[in-house]
């Protein structure tokens, strides 16, 4: 009976296509605007989240910062202090931080750029590879979300021992070693200022397009530059600097850590460690506080549009009620015939409530499809705008446009509710007809 009612409702709706469509208009507009706004809002949010995550979501950015004068008059005489070797943040301090907050802090991703260089094959002068040399902590791989393709990652022991080992990109390994296993091979790197370093390959990481940007195909393959990673302490040694600590670095947090709390804890920890340092202290911040504000704005807009949508849903519902009343009057005879053939009042009521629900659900579905289409389009535009606004991070920006499943479910639910609410009165009016009056209606 229920199923037959649905079939009949659809037949009835489709036998009056234009009228049904016009009736659904309010619902279509209401639902589609909610879907559009949630799709755009969602895509902005997820683009930003994904972008910030790719730039270090669950991390605290930290750097050594000069202590600025507190009084305005002191600014004139103040000069930026020079960073001495003992002003840097040492691995010991980081180890102490991990010990103090083992539930929050996992490690440090620090790097030191050594310069560009060229790997030269002694046996074959035509075979070379251009690289950037980066000193890194072992956590760098995780921070950059790079996958190890072969061999092993750099280790703390590599750092402590200032080992002459390196990680290379799979694209470089493939070409330079011509498909042969590079692990354990010795590389000779000539830097741009003429130094020659011998490094042993211990691992190969997978080149990540999102991270390093698209491969520049205008450059011949063998001239393309890839990133080579060596232990950061080794890089300090090769640079011949006294520095052994980090200036700019990212502190990696455990998955469960609260970023805001961790930022406070890290700040407090370094306040104490740097208490005696007159020139410098440590500044720690996270990007999630920016994210929080953007989210709030998007949520407020979404809520406001949903409010407007609710009003248009009500207006649409009144339209549905109106057309149902017209339809019931038109079909009075039919109702009489059905009653004469044994339809109970509740069956008649059910039939028209279902018809109103179907009308609203079809309208809702059209609205959802329309909203998904327009939302995806506008979401792309929004992502494009973000990409242009933050063009320096263009490589990091990950576009994610998809409609919110929650919004779709809620839309269907509310269209159905509209159907029930605004369909009940006309349906009840139909059910309350006297069979003989309905049959004799002209």
């Amino acid at each position: 009976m229920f199923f037959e009612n649905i079939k009949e409702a659809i037949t009835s709706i489709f036998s009056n296509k234009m009228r049904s469509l016009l009736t659904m208009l309010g619902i279509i507009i209401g639902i589609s605007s909610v879907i559009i706004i949630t799709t755009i809002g969602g895509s902005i949010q997820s683009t930003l989240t994904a972008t910030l995550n790719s730039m270090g979501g669950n991390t605290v950015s930290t750097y050594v910062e000069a202590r600025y004068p507190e009084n305005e008059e002191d600014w004139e005489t103040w000069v930026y202090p020079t960073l001495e070797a003992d002003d840097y943040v040492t691995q010991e301090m980081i180890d102490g931080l991990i010990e103090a907050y083992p539930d929050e802090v996992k490690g440090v991703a620090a790097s030191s750029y050594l310069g560009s260089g060229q790997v030269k094959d002694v046996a074959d002068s035509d075979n070379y590879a251009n690289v950037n040399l980066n000193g890194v902590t072992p956590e760098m791989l995780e921070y950059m979300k790079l996958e190890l393709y072969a061999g092993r990652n750099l280790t703390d022991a590599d750092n402590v021992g200032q080992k002459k080992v390196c990680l290379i990109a799979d694209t470089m390994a493939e070409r330079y070693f011509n498909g042969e296993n590079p692990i354990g091979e010795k590389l000779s790197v000539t830097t741009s200022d003429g130094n020659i370093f011998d490094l042993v390959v211990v691992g190969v990481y997978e080149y990540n397009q999102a991270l390093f940007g698209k491969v520049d195909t205008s450059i011949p393959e063998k001239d393309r530059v890839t990133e080579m990673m060596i232990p950061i302490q080794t890089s300090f040694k090769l640079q011949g600097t006294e520095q052994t600590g980090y200036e700019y670095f990212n502190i990696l947090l455990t998955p469960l850590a609260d970023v805001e709390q961790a930022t406070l804890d890290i700040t407090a920890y370094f306040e104490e460690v740097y208490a005696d340092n007159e020139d410098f202290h440590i500044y720690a911040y996270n990007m999630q506080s920016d994210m929080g504000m953007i989210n709030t704005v998007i949520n407020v807009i979404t809520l406001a549009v949903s409010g407007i949508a609710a009003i248009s849903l009500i207006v649409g519902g009144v339209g549905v009620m109106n057309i149902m009343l017209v339809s019931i009057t038109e079909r009075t005879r039919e109702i009489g015939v059905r009653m004469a053939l044994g339809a109970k009042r509740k069956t008649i009521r059910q039939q028209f409530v279902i018809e109103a629900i179907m009308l609203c659900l079809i309208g809702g579905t059209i609205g959802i499809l329309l909203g998904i289409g327009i939302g995806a389009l506008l979401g792309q535009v929004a992502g494009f705008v973000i990409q242009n606004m933050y063009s320096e991070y263009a490589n990091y920006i990950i576009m994610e446009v998809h409609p919110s499943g929650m919004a779709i479910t809620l839309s269907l639910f509310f269209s159905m509710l509209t159907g029930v609410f605004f369909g009940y009165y006309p349906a009840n009016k139909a059910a309350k007809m006297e069979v003989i009056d309905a049959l004799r209606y002209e």
Partner: protein
Amino acid sequence: MSEPVIRMEKIVKTYYQGKPNELEILHGIDLVVNQGEFVSIVGESGSGKSTLMNIIGVLDRQTSGNYYLEGQDVNSMTDEVRSAVRNQRIGFVFQNFNLLPRANALKNVMVPLMYGQTRVKTQKERAMEMLAMVGMEERAMHRPNELSGGQKQRVAIARAMINDPAIILADEPTGALDSKTGHMVMDLFHKLHEEQGKTIVLITHSQELAAETQRIVTILDGEIVAERGGEH
């Protein structure tokens, strides 16, 4: 003798009751129709034939008097039971066919099954059987607007028969048809009466058709004035 299908005692129907324009249409009708009878009701226009028929068909309520359908007091039935009675015990055939315009012949015949209690798996076959009985099986997929008047009425008769009712009520079933088609429809009623022993009450303006039935009840101004034939 077993309980008659219809037993009416002093049925009165008054419109606008208690109002200044109060109008009594039926003035105390006593009528008994027995199992297997084929009765026709005749009388001039406005005499109250349809009014009486609608009460018999549980489409309308009498103002006073008693009406027993198969021994059951119709007046004391709830709305739900009245629906079930219309669905199961009564097959109505209207002058203007009253088929559902958007449904094809087969669907129209199946409507009473849809509102019935019992879920029969072979609903379609049953409906096809009914259509075959009235010679309409080839038009099963046609909508009412694709059928002639006589064909529509045959579909309506198939629909009236589908739940195997106790009684078939037909209010001028040939009224909208030419006399040849009217005779064809009338033959169908005779067939149902003779082959299946159906109890049938028929309103007609045609003396000729009335004469074919077993008993003629004549109504004048809301009263039964003459009965001819019958096997009391």
